[in-house]
């Protein structure tokens, strides 16, 4: 077993070498109490059981270019990430505030452009390739652009969280939030008796309600569909899962066609009008008549119907301009400008390499910075200075110099770690957190998130395309458990006993909650 590295904040602060329980963070103490009686091989067999179940249910993704049914699993870790009710309150308020401002920004940038006139964001943003002139002057229902937003958060200390990036196009991963929870409840039902974990499985219902609310046609029972690129897309499982949970049709581009300013799907009983499309296809592929003409995934003529209000797209077209890494820098300013509030969540300090002095600084400190491509995603096209070889740094330097405006740089953050089951045993691995913010009549999020974990020792890249895994994220319900934890950690054992007694007395009520939450995992 490995000793946790002291320079990183650990979510649990488990010290497996000293077995010193007093250092374990309060919210994990009941978990630690449980964990110490569980032999490692038993955890490992639970992990294998989870893998088997995921395979059976088909929670897999295709790898492009690999034949013969090569489907992969995103690794699942059996040790949860636990977040206290207090922490969650802060994070969710911050994420909601951010998404509100981003939606207002999107409306503004496609209409009056006040924020440019106020001199807060430079007009060069209009030249961004993600800015869609086709959307100028188009009114979207309730001025919601990002119906679903994934806000990537990282933590560096007990109190310090940063927003790493906003995902406003077709953010994915929410199915893992839901499936990981189901899996944990199946594997470790007893843990859910020790902890009062806030339920997350109403997410699809909230999303469906929001989607129905943005229909612009007079239909009182609007038809909502999920538009997927198809079974060979890496996120196909998620598309199928969400469509099933919401009870809506999962369609592909060829299932839809445009006629008389309306979108129809081809059914065995003839054409049927579609009012709202929850699309999981990027802007570029959605309408070959307007964007990429080679796209086989989209629907010819869709954009024109959309612009005329014949159908609603979620997310709206053109949201990419707001989650671009070059725009990211201005989000705190947006919050002040549109909401007249102080940002609740901080941005990572960012160097814009289009600026002379930032470029100079960055080139001199490449070995300690993270450099990202402005339009890159999925962990591709980035340099992690401290982990890179000299050769990699020099190659990247040439790329930066040739097109500085394509890059931003950030200090290498000391991402928090969370104990994770790896081959050698339980060891700290770096994690991030992606809560999903839903915008409808109100802006909300279910108390949970996708927690991604970098499984390679020391790695800071958590993306699944780069070998990252996922963990279930437990947001604890506010209540008795929480209150006890607010006191000092000096009398650990006593507290654990207190918590246990309280749980016992509340057990009946809780069991009921659990029964309501538990669904058969398959």
């Amino acid at each position: 077993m490995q000793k946790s590295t002291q320079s990183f904040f650990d979510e649990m602060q488990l010290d497996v070498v000293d077995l010193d329980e007093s250092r374990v963070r309060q919210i994990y103490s009941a978990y630690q109490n449980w964990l110490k009686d569980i032999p490692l091989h038993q955890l490992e067999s639970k992990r294998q059981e989870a893998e088997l179940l995921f395979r059976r249910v088909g929670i897999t993704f295709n790898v492009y270019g690999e034949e013969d049914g090569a489907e992969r699993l995103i690794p699942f870790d059996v040790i949860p990430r636990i977040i206290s009710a207090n922490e969650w309150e802060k994070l969710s308020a911050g994420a909601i505030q951010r998404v509100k401002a981003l939606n207002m920004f999107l409306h503004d940038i496609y209409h009056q452009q006040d924020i440019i006139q106020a001199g807060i964001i430079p007009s060069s943003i209009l030249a961004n390739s993600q800015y869609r002139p086709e959307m100028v002057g188009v009114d979207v229902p309730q001025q919601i652009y990002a119906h679903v937003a994934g806000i990537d958060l990282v933590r560096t200390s007990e109190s310090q969280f940063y927003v790493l990036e906003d995902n406003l196009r077709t953010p994915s991963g929410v199915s893992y939030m839901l499936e990981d929870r189901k899996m944990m409840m199946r594997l470790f039902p007893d843990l859910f008796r020790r902890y009062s974990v806030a339920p997350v499985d109403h997410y699809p219902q909230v999303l469906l309600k929001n989607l129905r609310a943005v229909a612009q046609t007079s239909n009182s029972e609007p038809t909502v569909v999920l538009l997927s690129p198809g079974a060979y897309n890496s996120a196909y499982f998620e598309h199928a899962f969400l469509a099933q949970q919401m009870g809506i049709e999962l369609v592909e581009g060829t299932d839809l066609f445009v006629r008389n300013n309306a979108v129809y799907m081809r059914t065995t009983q003839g054409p049927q009008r579609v009012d709202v499309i929850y699309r999981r296809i990027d802007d570029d592929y959605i309408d070959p008549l307007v964007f990429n003409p080679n796209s086989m995934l989209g629907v010819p003529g869709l954009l024109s119907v959309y612009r005329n209000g014949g159908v609603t797209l979620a997310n709206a077209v053109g949201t990419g301009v707001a989650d671009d890494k070059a725009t990211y820098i201005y989000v705190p300013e947006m919050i002040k400008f549109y909401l007249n509030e102080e940002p609740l969540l901080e941005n990572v300090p960012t160097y814009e390499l289009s600026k002379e002095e930032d470029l100079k600084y960055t080139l001199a400190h490449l070995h300690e910075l993270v450099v990202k491509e402005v339009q890159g995603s999925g962990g591709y096209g980035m340099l992690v200075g401290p982990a890179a070889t000299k050769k990699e740094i020099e190659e990247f330097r040439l790329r930066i110099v040739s097109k500085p405006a394509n890059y931003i740089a950030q200090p290498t953050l000391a991402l928090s770690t969370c104990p994770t089951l790896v081959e050698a045993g339980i060891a700290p691995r770096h994690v991030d957190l992606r809560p999903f913010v839903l915008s409808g009549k109100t802006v909300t999020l279910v108390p949970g998130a996708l927690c991604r974990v970098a499984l390679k020792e020391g790695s800071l890249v958590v993306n699944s395309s780069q070998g990252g895994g996922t963990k279930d994220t437990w947001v604890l319900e506010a209540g008795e458990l929480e209150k006890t934890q607010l006191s000092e950690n000096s009398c650990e054992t006593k507290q654990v006993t207190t918590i246990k007694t309280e749980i016992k007395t509340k057990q009946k009520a809780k069991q009921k909650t659990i029964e309501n939450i538990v669904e058969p995992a398959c």
Partner: protein
Amino acid sequence: MLSRTADHLYWMARYIERAENMARVLEVTYSMSLVPNAAQSEAALWLPALEIAGNVDQYEEEYGNVDAAKVIHYLSMDVNNPSSIYNALRNARENARAVRVDMTSETWENINALWIEFDQFRGADLTKAGLPEFCDWVKARSHLFRGVCFGTMLRDDAFSFVRLGTFIERADNTARLLDVKYHLLLPDEEEVGGAVDYYEWSAVLRSVSAFQAYQKIFSDSIVPWRVAELLVLRRDMPRSLHACLDEITPILEQLAGRRQVECRRLAGELHAKLRYGKMQDIFQRGLHEFLSDFIDSNNLLGAEIQRAFLSINAS
């Protein structure tokens, strides 16, 4: 429902049924090969299996002469043979995956588990004792598939298209099997009733799970025309042509509703022939002619179903 969804469900069911029938043919041929003097040669024994699958030419091109090991591999595992069990099951699973939303999770997981389990047979030697075990497995998975559909799916259009696929495919397979075997077993006016003959015909019956049914209904020695009657006209025999059309016709009535579609008329016509046909007349005209007509009409029916409900331009 979406036409594409209906298409995937229909073909999923067809491919599962196809795999099952292929397994039945392999199994029965294999058990024949254990009977001494059953056939003049290995080639004579295994060629009909290829004929039933309908791709002798492709086989000869790829493998040359007919021998047991090669035919078994070709029909069970060959990646390049579009009607091998491997490809049938793979296609069934791919179709299922594309519409996993439109079936119950039990149905989906059942097919997915089938595909995961299939891995244990890849690379196994099927020429020896492995073959019956493999064929039993394919049949059992197919039974399970029907059971899980029947036991869990809502009785809506999705269910109808699954059933439709099953019976169109089954009718085709039963007709082919009977045609090839009958052809082969009755060369001339030769005398029937010998021991080998008994084995042959009981094998045919077993391959469509009809051996016990035959005994029960006729309780007599096995004679070819009664086997034919059982597999063509008996509506209470679940793999017979009549039984298949008994299922197909009402499904098409219900799916078509008030629409006048050709497939509905065709099914009715085909159904009437089986319902009111007499075995004596069929034999007089020739069983082979009757069966090859049936196979053609059934193919046409499939194409018309495709045109009316499933193709992307259906609406």
